[in-house]
Structures are given as structure tokens and as C-alpha cells.
């Protein structure tokens, strides 16, 4: 059975199958950009682009009231105090609103922070437009410094009918703890 043609057949199939396995290993990594694109299209995961939206302020179109809740979170051992100025706001789509988040550096060193936003439900990500946000840039704090950080946003009147409550969540990270992306 170990004659040459058979051995060649075997190695040909072997190479194909090893190739398939390596290809699938690469596919695993390819899933990362695919997932990003998929999330971009569907709003899955509620991830924002970290740049200011350009919107012309429109007159509030209807009497719809949307509740926007603000959540500020910190991971374990994060050396900050971090909370929103108000827990929630009642907003009308199409109108511009301002609010602030407060952050304080609890260490005796200079720290650079970065807020990472996320919104729930994820489908709302395209309809929540931030014209100004402290999350667009990293925030430098001197030792024990605390300050309010601005946020300006508009809820798009196109927001699907069935959504009447949005939760905007920020997690505040010290950038020296994680790689910048």
C-alpha cells in the first residue's frame, strides 16, 4: 500500500488539509475586522466613532420625549472618581443638549484618561449624535485635579419609533494602563 502514487496522493491531500487548517486560523483573525464592519453597519455593540458629528440643528420635530440615561463606570483599581452631572435627561429629538461628566484624578501623579462610550440599545448608535464630547480626545489631569467635562448631543428625529429610552455609558480608563488604538 506504500507504493509511490498512493504516497503522493496522501501528501497532496495532506497539504490541502493543512492549508485549510492554516486558512481557518487566519480566518479567526479576519473575524476581527469583519466584526467591526458588521457592527458599523448594524450598530451591534453600540460602539461610536470617536469624532464629532456634523449636524445642522433642527427644530424639534415632534412632541416625542426620549429619556437619555447617563452611566459612568470604572474598572477595578481605576484611580478615578467619575460620574455624570445628572443621571438622566428628558430630551426632544432634533434639539441640542449640553451636559457634563465629572472626573477626578485620585492619585498624586499626572494621569491621562480616556473615556470609551457605548450606547444601549445598540441600534440607536447612528441616531445619537455627539457634536462635542470629552471622549473625542484624551484628558490630562494633574495630581488630584478634578473637573467637569462637556458633552453636547442631538438625538436624531429618525430614531426608530420603538426606542424611547437610551443609555449612554462611559468607561473611564487611564491611558497608561492600556494600549492606545
Amino acid at each position, binding site marked *: 500500500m506504500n507504493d509511490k502514487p498512493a504516497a503522493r496522493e496522501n501528501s497532496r491531500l495532506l497539504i490541502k488539509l493543512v492549508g485549510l487548517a492554516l486558512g481557518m486560523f487566519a480566518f479567526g483573525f479576519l*473575524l476581527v475586522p469583519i466584526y467591526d464592519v458588521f457592527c458599523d453597519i448594524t450598530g451591534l455593540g453600540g460602539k461610536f466613532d470617536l469624532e464629532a458629528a456634523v449636524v445642522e440643528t433642527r427644530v424639534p420635530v415632534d412632541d416625542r420625549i426620549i429619556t437619555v440615561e447617563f452611566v459612568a463606570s470604572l474598572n477595578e483599581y481605576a484611580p478615578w472618581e467619575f460620574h455624570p452631572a445628572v443621571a438622566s435627561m428628558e430630551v426632544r429629538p432634533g434639539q441640542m443638549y449640553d451636559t457634563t461628566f465629572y472626573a477626578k484624578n485620585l492619585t498624586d501623579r499626572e494621569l491621562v484618561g480616556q473615556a470609551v462610550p457605548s450606547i444601549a440599545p445598540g441600534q440607536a448608535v447612528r441616531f445619537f449624535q455627539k457634536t462635542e464630547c470629552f471622549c473625542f480626545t484624551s484628558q490630562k489631569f494633574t495630581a488630584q485635579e478634578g473637573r467637569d467635562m462637556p458633552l453636547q448631543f442631538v438625538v436624531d428625529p429618525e430614531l426608530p419609533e420603538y426606542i424611547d429610552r437610551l443609555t449612554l455609558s462611559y468607561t473611564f480608563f487611564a491611558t497608561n494602563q492600556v494600549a492606545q488604538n
Partner: protein
Amino acid sequence: MSATVADMHDSHDHHGPVHTGIKRWLFATNHKDIGTLYLVFALVMLFVGGLMALIIRAELFQPGLQFVDPDFFNQMTTMHALIMVFGMIMPAFAGFANWMIPMMIGAPDMALPRLNNWSFWLLPFAATLLVSTLFMPGGAPASGWTLYPPLVLQTGDAFPFAIFAIHLLGISSIMAAINIIVTILNLRTPSMSLLQMPMFVWSWLITAYLLILVMPVLAGGVTMLLMDQFFGTSFFEAAGGGDPVLFQHIFWFFGHPEVYIIILPAFGIISHVIPAFSRKPLFGHNAMVYATACIAFLSCVVWAHHMFTVGMPLAGQMFFMFATMLIAIPTGVKIFNWTATMWQGALTFETPMLFAIAFLFLFTIGGFTGVMMAMVPLDFQYHDSYFIVAHFHYVLVPGALFGAIAGCYFWLPKWTGHMYDERLGKIHFWLTTIFVNLTFFPQHFVGLAGMPRRIPDYAVQFTNFNMMSSIGAFGFGFSQLLLVYVIYKCVKGGAKATAEVWDNPEGLEWTVPSPAPYHTFEVPPVYTPRYGATH
């Protein structure tokens, strides 16, 4: 055929193992030796993983914390799952594949015998590496076998070791899969067409392709975990623009096909056992092949049903819900075909058949709870409760493991040349089946009532069911010692088995003497399907 058999028997005297003693096993390239190694390894791991399950059940016997601290409890749930999945059930079926596939397709050996040796011998080292994480500072991973970040990144020094162990286990099973595909496609006796191949061979061909498709994706996923932890990447780190949910997608892209990788070979074994003891050909052989292929395909597009609760668009929920429920159709084809095989058959109830029938009943229960969980609105209640624990144990224990045990009793006389002790086999069956139900059935109830999984303590109202479960688990665990004794006794001696062993079963493996000679089918046999060209 008889001439071939006589030749085989003749050559048996001259061509035993090249090496003797420990070298026979270390340098093994014979498919039967490697099959035996796999099976013995799996049996050892059954007890290692089982011991961990008993630690879990001992702790859950009563509410409150009795024996172990919560972190160690979670290390146990994690290690129990990893060992049972990668160290026990997959090697067990690889062992069956090694032993039986060449004999079923009339091949002299596996196509790539040295690769075969390597894929087995990676296993003990990988398993040792995995178990050794228990003794490292910070202990073994305690994140559950799903290894979700960021929790898994809090593992102590053991983290890279656990990841490397998973890499090794993955490499081992990919190599075994490649070997099996090459063997089936290139070494099959020329007179056996693809569709004529026995169901166990078909199941493994499809399983092997699934393994090659998804194992590397898991390897990629855990490599990303490693990079996040040590090289400052942010695949799953929200602060760096990554997303931990991505890991769940990658994991379940592997994880869902993996559950079919575990169950399909068991389907294959059952498709041999039921016809043999019904004395009828397998009903709808071709339908079984297509159903298996269909299950394998669907298994690759349903992964997100494991993560409904992380939130996804309505369209996504609908797609994954309906695609998942669709799997019930080809699975139903298989269940009904097995039942139809028994219909009007001349049934006898030897131990393998008992396990096969129990498989049929109990796997179906697990299948139904699976359909329940496929429904999005219901899944929110069942998710991460003991209901899911009951579900997947029903498909894995009386499903996959019963398949393996049935196969073990079925082919043991072929392997050893002796009949096993039928009386002890039946006792083993009844103990196992009663205790397995006592263990897992009450878990449905506590799960529905709200008991979460992976937590060492629970509310007092769940006590009675948990006590039943724990008693069942200990009974089940100790019953398996009987299996070891039956196997030991059968290896040592017993009534002489004939070549056919059972009453005129179908398949080339029954045309060689028992015990199967060290080398079989050095000349490709002529295969004539017994039931005409219908399949």
C-alpha cells in the same frame, strides 16, 4: 473474502509489534495500538474529570460553603469541562476512529501513521500541562470553559499554560482529523463507494472536516487572548477600542460546531449498534448521511444562540433562532431512522443495545430542551441557569458518553478476542442510566426555578433537588469503576469471541478474526454491500 481472512490470520504470527514493552506504545504507528492508547487515555481522563465533577457536586450537596472556596469551585467547573471535552470525549472517539475506520473501509492502517503517533502523544503532555495549572500561583483558569475575557485575563500565572495546553490539544485533534480524512478518501478499498461507507466512517469524515474548520478559529481566539494579556493588543479590551463580545463570537463560532464534533461520532456508533441488535439494515442509510452533513453545515451558522443575552438586533435573533430550530429536522431524521431500524426487528438487549436505546431516549430529551433554549424569549430565562447545565449534560453524557460506552461494549470482543461479562455489563448499564437521570433530571427544575450555574452556594429551596443530584453524581461516578472492571476482565479472559461476535452484523470489521490481528487488510478486500445497492 475468506481467503483474505486466512491470509491475515497467517500473517498474524509473523508480524506482531516491531517493538516490545514501553517502546511498543511510545513508537506506536499501528492504528490498533494508537486506538488503544487513545481509549485508555480517555478512560483515565474520564476519572480525572469525573473527580472534579464530584468535588463540584459535594460542594453543592448543601447550600452554603462546605468544602472548597468559591474560586476553587470555579476552577473545578472550568477544568471539569475542558478535560471532559478535550481530554476525554474527543480522544475517546479518536480512539474508536483509529481502531475501527481502517477495519471498516478495508484499509491496512491509517494513511499517516507517524502523524498518528504524534497526534496521540501530544495529548498526555497537553493534559498534564492543563492539570498542572491547578498547582500554579493563582490556580487554574476559573472563567468557565468558555474562557470569556475580561474574566479569564484575571487568571494568575497559569494563564499562558492553560492557553498553550488548549493549543496543543487543538493541534492534536486537527492532526487526527487530517489523518482520518486522508485515510477515508485514499485508503478505502476500491470496491466501496463513498455512499456505501458505514455510518461511523461517514460521521467521522464529516466530523473531521468540522474539526479542521473550527479548531483553528479557537486557536486564533485564544491566541488573541494571549496577545491582549502580554503584547498590549486590544482585541477584546474596550479601552483600546476592542470588544469583549467579539471573543464570544469567535469562541462560539468554534464552540457550536464543537458540540457536533462531540456528538456525531456517537451518532455513528449508534448507527452500527442498533442495526446489529435489531437484525435489520440501518433504515435510510443515505438519508442518515445527508442528515449528518446537514447538521454539520447548520452547526456552523447558529453560534450566536449561545449569546442572545448579550444583545443583538432583532433580525439577528430571528436568524439564529430559526436556524437553530432547523437543526431539529435533520436530527429528527436520525432519531426516527434509528427507531424505524428497530421497528419489527428481532431485537435482543445485550449491553451495547441497552446503551443505544438509552441514548435514543435521553439524547432526545436533551435535544428537546435544546429547542426550548433556541427560542429567544425563553432563552433569557434559561441562560446561565442549571437548566442549560441539565440540557448539555443530557446531550453529552447519555448522548456522547453513552455512544462511546455502547461502542466500547460492542467492539470490545473484537479488540480483545473475549466476550465481556454480560451480567456485569447489564448491571453497569442499569446503575449508569438510573444515576445519570438522578443526577441531571432535577437540574432542569432548579434551573427553571432560577438557580444559576457556576456558583458554589444556592438558595435553600433548591436543597432537595441538589441533594438528589449529588447522590446521583456519586452513584454515577462510582458505577464507572464497574466499567473499568468489565474491560479489565474482558482483556484478561472470558468466553472466546467468534469473528462475527454478534448475530451476523454487517461490516468488514466482522470478517477478520477476534481479536483482530495486528495487521488487517494488507490486500484490499472486496466489499459487497449486504443489502444490495440500495445504499
